């Protein structure tokens, strides 16, 4: 063998081992790739079945989740019947279930408020969230102001469910009970007790 080639061979081998060792020890991201990962058993890994929200070549429009027949209501779903403008109907239609003031209800309300409302209205409901500041959106109301605090629970439920002005409906994202829990939590941020509905319509008072 050629003596002069030996060191190069050993150096290459050493580098190779060092590289592998580094990869193993680091366990971090060694590279970014746009190539899909190798599937060694792709017959099993990728069976031909409908997976939620995945494309499926079986259908012409590639939707594996088929559009339901018009008017279908999902199991357990409680669609909100009123439109954005039906303010008067909202006061009588939305009957406050009077959730108990338990720790769970408050925590659940806080959780849902922080997830869905805080993006714009901020964690303290004063509506100066990072999103609002950055976009400098006008007219997102401070929920702790007097006008909002004076709204009845039924009316706030209506706003969450049907939307108001820029705000879209959140009926598809927040379950009915969660919406009432949010209102419970919002009342603590506002520091008021709140009325269940317009006094003329329903007499039950929130706790």
């Amino acid at each position: 063998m050629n003596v002069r080639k030996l060191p190069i061979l050993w150096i290459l081998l050493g580098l190779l081992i060092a590289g592998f060792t580094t990869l193993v020890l680091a366990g971090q991201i060694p590279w970014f790739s746009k190539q899909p990962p190798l599937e060694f058993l792709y017959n099993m890994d990728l069976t031909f079945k409908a997976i939620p929200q995945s494309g499926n070549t079986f259908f012409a429009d590639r939707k594996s989740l088929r559009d339901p027949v018009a008017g279908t209501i999902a199991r357990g779903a409680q669609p909100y019947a009123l439109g954005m403008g039906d303010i008067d109907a909202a006061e009588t239609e939305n009957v406050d279930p009077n959730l108990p003031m338990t720790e769970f209800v408050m925590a659940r309300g806080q959780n849902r408020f922080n997830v869905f409302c805080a993006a714009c209205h901020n964690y303290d409901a004063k509506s100066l969230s990072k999103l609002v500041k950055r976009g400098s959106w006008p007219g997102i109301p401070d929920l702790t102001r007097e006008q909002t605090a004076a709204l009845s629970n039924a009316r706030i439920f209506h706003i969450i469910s049907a939307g108001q002005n820029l705000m879209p409906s959140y009926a598809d994202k927040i379950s009915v009970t969660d919406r009432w829990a949010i209102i419970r939590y919002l009342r603590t941020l506002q520091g008021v007790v709140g009325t269940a509905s317009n006094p003329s319509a329903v007499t039950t008072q929130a706790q």
Partner: protein
Amino acid sequence: MFSRRFDMGVKVGGAVVGAVAAIVFLVGYFGVRNSVADVGYRPDQPVPFSHKLHTGELQIQCQYCHAGVEASAHSPVPTTQTCMNCHTAVKAESPKLKVVRDSYESGQPIEWARIHKVPDYVHFNHSRHIRAQIDCKSCHGPIEEMGVVSQFKPLTMGWCLDCHRNPEALIVGARPISGVFTGKLHAVKDLLDSSYIFTPIAAQVGKSTPITVPQFGSYDTDIPPLTVAGIPHPKKAGIGPENCSTCHY
């Protein structure tokens, strides 16, 4: 034809090359693959959506878009409607959002490139992990720092079992990080909030059927007095995380 010496060289050389190739393959497949395989997969998406902007800077909580992850096995990719909640008003004319607007008008969903994928014979359930208070970041990494999302953990069975066999080293006490549970991003303080979840499925409200043990509370039953130290160990809670049929069914 060839000299005996050359013939021998070819045979020995071939054997050596074959052996080295086999070792490299074995080490690579069983050693390296487990920790780095699939990690770093960062495909191009149809819309240049930045999690860094939306989650990191604007502090929109994960579940605002991935709504339903706490109740469903599949973590939903947001509908185009969710994008349009804001983008009817914000950057409504941006050329980057043309795909989103077209999808909104036509009703044809956006075909996002899927990054995190376990084989089809594995049934991973997001809601179980969310309710067991496993943070999103435990598996998905620092999403709020990713301009373009890439896979952060290998999602191999060995990696799953690392945690399922030894949860106290990796989870218990380490949660939560990003505030899936408080709804507040990155709020490490006030860990007590993390015990305040769940039984969020509408069908459960009023029935209080426990899906996971322990039950963290429902609209019917209040939260049991828990402290962070008192969060039950998954194994003691009878979750059976090493049973084959937990995932392969």
